[in-house]
């Protein structure tokens, strides 16, 4: 699908990546996976490569895949860390199903990733690491670089370890430090192979290692050595060029989902002109949001690394009571711990945003892997009738908009809102078209200051009660977790009052549906199949559907941001198709919600491997169904 190639004549020289006497193959898109030990710096290499790709104007999507151990024993299968990127001259929605190129820094990395590589794809292996010890650790009886294992691939066996050592032998830096430079050698090699210039990368290195100039120099030398090797060696028959993508004009940056969420929360605070308070406890894969916001103290942002998950949300509730935007961020197990406090926030009717960057569960589960299995927890997982609006982001950049949307709902309806992201988009990057802050809609926040006729639980047309900042004279009042009187908020055990309060809390959250814009359906208005998706499955579904349409299939796609309440128009849309397919990284949680709400069957497509759907998996399922 993404590997149509054509050979073009050597183009005009435009970069140091220009090859002498060597053809440049122009390709539409390419998927590259960098794999090595978790100490080999593969995340850095991948990240830097993605920046180079971004600067060239490509659309791209990345997928970092790393173990939950910080630095597992070297050379082991479980210590392999990877970073995959797809970049293209067209639109990119996923990091790609099958790598066209695998850069393997040791035998374990090759062993754990080989089965994913495209048949006939390119393998660049650091032969220096394929020694007896490492081969044994990876469970190889003989050296796969030499025994014919890789005959179906284009193998480039390069002693990156040795060449890096050679290049740095005169620098005087320690042997251990030299060992750490080989990822830059590999990066240099790949930059040359994909016709990217070195200068910006050298700037990045010098900025990154500003405090250790000798290390910066060593890395620059390694980078150049890798580049020079690729340029001069006879080994590579051709180098490759991907044309810039046809994407809307504007200023872009590469952004991960967690970073985009942090920017969105900062924006929500500015747009509301209300300070932001984040109470949080570090947990993979959500920690980045806490880290990003902690660096923004020059905004009206306070971050509080609490003693535990419960204190994270409780401090945010206290802050919200004080009249600021309360936020807490977490992942699955932390979400479980916050459950009781979520109920309190529902009773208090204060604005609060809870971000769950979902990971594999249950319990500690798969901390660094993607899953969408906390949806029912978000919608239902509390004691009592405890409704909370739930929204989910579809891509890294979409986290920015969802962060703002979550607070918009929270302040308008005086309610906690759960924002679901996941490990797949939280750490993955894609280009983000930088918005002009002046064009972002303001968040309308009004604090009540008029004590005349004030009742703490009196409601407006949206059924929201007033937000009153402590410190406002004449409006002293008490709130709490006990059931409260419909108007005064005082404790009430009256049976009819309780029923009325349960109903009004439910009606308030159901009313959020009025704010949901009409759904966008990609594809035919009616037909054989509608795919209903939510969250990070977006990219895979889009590409799978497009391929199916090219194959003549009548298939449409609608992707949900709002999961509680569901959009009002979804039922009618579903009714126009013969079948509904719901791909989810769980056992069918949205499917359950849809069946319950619309009393029609849907086809569950489930995957529970800690991995995103491959485009081909969804595509194949579509072809089976229509």
């Amino acid at each position: 699908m993404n590997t149509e190639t054509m050979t073009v004549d050597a183009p005009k020289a435009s970069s140091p990546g220009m090859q002498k006497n060597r053809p440049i193959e122009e390709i539409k898109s390419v998927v590259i996976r960098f794999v090595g030990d978790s100490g080999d710096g593969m995340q850095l290499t991948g990240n830097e490569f993605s920046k180079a790709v971004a600067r060239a104007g490509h659309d791209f999507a990345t997928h970092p895949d790393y173990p939950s151990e910080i630095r597992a024993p070297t050379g082991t299968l479980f210590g392999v860390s990877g970073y995959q990127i797809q970049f293209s001259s067209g639109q990119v929605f996923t990091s790609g199903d099958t790598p066209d190129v695998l850069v393997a820094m040791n035998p374990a990395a090759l062993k754990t990733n080989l089965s994913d590589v495209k048949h006939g794809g390119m393998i660049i292996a650091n032969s220096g690491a394929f020694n007896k010890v490492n081969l044994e650790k990876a469970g190889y009886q003989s050296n796969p670089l030499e025994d014919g294992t890789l005959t179906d691939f284009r193998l480039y066996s390069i002693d990156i370890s040795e060449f890096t050592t050679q290049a740095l032998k005169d620098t005087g830096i320690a042997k251990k430090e030299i060992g750490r430079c080989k990822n830059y050698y590999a990066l240099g090699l790949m930059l040359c192979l994909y016709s990217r210039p070195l200068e910006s990368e050298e700037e990045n290195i010098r900025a990154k290692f500003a405090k250790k100039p000798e290390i910066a120099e060593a890395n620059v030398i390694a980078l150049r050595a890798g580049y020079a090797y690729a340029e001069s060696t006879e080994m590579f028959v051709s180098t490759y060029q991907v044309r810039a993508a046809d994407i809307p004009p504007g200023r872009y940056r590469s952004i991960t989902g967690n970073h985009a969420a942090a920017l969105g929360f900062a924006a929500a605070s500015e747009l509301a002109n209300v300070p932001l308070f984040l109470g949080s406890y570090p947990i993979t894969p959500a920690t980045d949001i806490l880290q990003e916001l902690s660096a923004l103290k020059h905004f009206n942002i306070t971050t509080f690394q609490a003693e535990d998950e419960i204190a994270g949300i409780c401090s945010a509730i206290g802050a919200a009571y004080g009249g600021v935007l309360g936020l807490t961020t977490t992942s699955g197990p932390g979400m479980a711990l916050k459950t009781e406090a979520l109920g309190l926030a529902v009773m208090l009717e204060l604005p609060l945003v809870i971000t769950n960057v979902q990971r594999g569960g249950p319990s500690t589960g798969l901390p660094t892997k993607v899953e969408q299995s906390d949806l029912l927890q978000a919608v239902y997982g509390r004691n009592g009738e405890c409704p909370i609006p739930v929204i989910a982001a579809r891509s890294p950049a979409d986290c920015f908009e969802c962060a703002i949307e979550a607070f918009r709902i929270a302040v308008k309806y005086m309610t906690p809102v759960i924002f679901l992201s996941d490990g797949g988009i939280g750490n993955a990057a894609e280009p983000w078209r930088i918005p002009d802050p002046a064009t972002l809609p303001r968040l309308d926040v009004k604090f009540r200051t008029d004590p005349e006729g004030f009742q703490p639980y009196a409601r407006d047309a949206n059924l929201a009660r007033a937000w009153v900042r402590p410190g406002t004279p004449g409006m002293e009042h008490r709130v709490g977790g006990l059931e409260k009187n419909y108007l005064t908020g005082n404790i009430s055990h009256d049976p009819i009052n309780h029923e009325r309060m349960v109903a009004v809390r439910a009606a308030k959250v159901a009313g959020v549906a009025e704010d949901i814009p009409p759904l966008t359906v990609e594809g035919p208005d009616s037909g054989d199949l509608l795919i209903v998706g939510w969250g990070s499955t977006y990219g895979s579904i889009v590409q799978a559907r497009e391929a199916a349409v090219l194959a003549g299939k009548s298939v449409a796609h609608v992707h949900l941001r709002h999961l509680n309440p569901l959009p009002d128009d979804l039922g009618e849309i579903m009714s126009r198709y013969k079948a509904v397919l719901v791909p989810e990284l769980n056992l069918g949680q949205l499917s359950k919600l849809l069946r319950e709400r619309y009393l029609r069957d849907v086809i569950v497509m489930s995957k529970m491997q800690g991995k995103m759907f491959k485009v081909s998996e969804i595509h194949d399922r579509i072809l089976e169904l229509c």
Partner: protein
Amino acid sequence: MNQMTEIKPLTRKDFESDQDVRWCPGCGDYALLAQVQKLLPTLGIPRENFAFISGIGCSSRFPYYMETYGMHSIHGRAPAIASGLKLARPDLSVWVVSGDGDSLAIGGNHFIHAMRRNIGLKMILLNNRIYGLTKGQYSPTSEFGKKTKTTPLGSIDRPFSPVSVALGAGATFVARTVDSDHPHLLETLKRAAEHPGTAFVEVLQNCVVFNDGAYNALSDRESRADARILLEHGKPMRFGKDGNKGIRMRGFEPEVVTVGENGVTEADLMVHDETAANGGLAFFLSQFAAPLPVPLGVFRAVDSPVYETLNQQLAADARAHKGQGALDKLFNSGDTWTID
């Protein structure tokens, strides 16, 4: 609204809410409520700037009876909620009212971290050494061997001393008082209110229904002089009906001595120092057990940077260094590129 700012002095009546107080008749919590309502009008803080946060338990009904801002939250979490509130709103006077189960069992983690951070919270722990609201189970402060509904054969749990826990967690102000001695209670609360960081006050409180008489020795006017020692900064540690008993150190062990007997003079007695940089003395006092008297008063009151002040300073420094945050600059930071 009335903009005439002729400030009428507040009275305790101003702090009484319209809610019926629902504690058992004779409960020690009434004493705290009365003394707090007496204290607050004297602090020079507008009524609307007080917020009372509580957890769950008999004592945690406290905010409902105060005509201030308040929140009756969930079990054990009041310190965390109050921390968020105080950080978001350093201008408020934030009080936490809690019990022995709320603070030291389910909320133990929040309790110790509030103590260590030194956020400007006034934290009152009503210690009745029993679970009242659930009708009589033992608590983390119940005595070893105590028979309750869940320890019919006697408790095998060793109890916490709340003052020791607070000191061990690094609290900068720690005091103990008793519900029955209203002037001492009021004075102790006043000292807590004046402390800029976290101020912790343990109130020994009688539960008339499930643990009646737990502090009889301290409330009985005849016996209390011998059962308690009132800590006074810079003063020798004397107590007793006639004021002639005292605490003397023998090695690392305290002993009760009588001034004027066996050659003991006042110069032999320990002298209380609540400001000692080393918390050892305060902790030592917090471990007093019979036959030593129960220390009441301020164990420790030391100056230490206050969390919310440091937090505001960090923000001010960041603004001085980077300028007030602007979204446009933030969005466009890092590696950007332009597509024409």
